[in-house]
């Protein structure tokens, strides 16, 4: 798949990214476990939600240049799944602390908006480092306008749509399994 972005992939930096995300996950889970019950289960639920979505939309993009062990299936990288999962967990934690009295639907929308904002920043980094390459079909449908010269402006509705489905998945299973949580 050809990329319109001509950024050089530096393998060492990629390994750095993988190690950074694994360390960030470990540190985050240790910290959040002291603040929140059942954080491991909540982490797994969120991870599965993100993974389901990534699996479904795998044809829309490629994740390239990561170490072999960072891939789960085809070009689905569990390392990047960790990144999206951490984004949602930290935003959820932040919203629950900063907006304690907000109704559930309000916190639901706030989490989607904030995690989408961070998600778009993450996408910009992935595209600029050459890890993320969009499929020709995505680029054909895109208007050509880019955010920060990297990510199609259409991500302003793609990313919130993704977040809406995944955050709802997380909350639904938290309720179902009666494990509680900050949100």
């Amino acid at each position, binding site marked *: *798949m050809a990329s319109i972005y001509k950024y050089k992939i530096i393998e060492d930096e990629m390994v750095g990214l993988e190690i950074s995300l694994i360390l960030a996950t470990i540190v985050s889970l240790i910290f959040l476990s002291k603040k929140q019950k059942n954080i491991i289960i909540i982490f797994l639920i969120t991870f599965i*939600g993100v993974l*389901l*979505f990534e*699996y*479904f*939309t*795998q*044809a*829309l993009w490629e994740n390239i240049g990561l170490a072999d062990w960072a891939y789960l299936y*085809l070009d689905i990288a569990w390392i990047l799944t960790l990144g999206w999962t951490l984004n949602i967990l930290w935003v959820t934690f932040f919203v629950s602390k900063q907006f304690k009295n907000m109704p559930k639907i309000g916190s639901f929308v706030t989490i989607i908006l904030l995690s989408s904002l961070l998600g778009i920043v993450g996408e910009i980094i992935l595209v600029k480092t050459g890890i993320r390459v969009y*499929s*020709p*079909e*995505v680029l*054909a*449908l895109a208007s050509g306008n880019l955010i920060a010269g990297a990510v199609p402006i259409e991500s302003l*509705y*793609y990313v919130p*749509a*993704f977040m*809406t*489905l*995944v955050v*709802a*998945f997380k*909350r*639904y*299973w938290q*309720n*179902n*399994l009666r494990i509680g949580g900050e949100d």
Partner: protein
Amino acid sequence: MGFLTIAESTGEVASTLATEIIVILFAVGIYLFLMSQKTKRLNFKYIIILLSVFLFQIMAEPMWSDIGLADWAYLYRNVSWIFTIGFASIFMITFYIVDEKIKNRSETVSFFLYLLVLTSISTIIESILFSVGLREYSTTLTQSFSGISLLGLVPIEILLASALVGALVIPLYKYLTE
């Protein structure tokens, strides 16, 4: 854009106006049926499921095209509101079957029953759409297919995709309506 269709090989062209009328009648029929069953907050539930299905259509837009329908059947580009109401109706009848006909279960068991019923119905519908050429898959998507077909007709990935859509749309609907 390099989309492939099985219709190219079969030479069949769908009678699209009939498709649109059938889907609208199906959706109206399901709505009236659920109304007759005194389904609580029916309009609200319909709005939520329509939004949920539409969200997925937005995400999946680059992966397939809904082609050959009348101009008025499209919301924008190749996203058709005809298919939005069609698939929303399939979700609603799935919820009815599981919630009203198979009672006394936990929500977790219900979830998997929803998936089972939904996947069974939507795989059949999706296979028909694909076979008559109303649904086309993108080249990138077809390249990721295993090559295994369902009953020798459609890619087996349709089965998996139907389950995946359900696994993400059902929680959104249930979370917002309960």
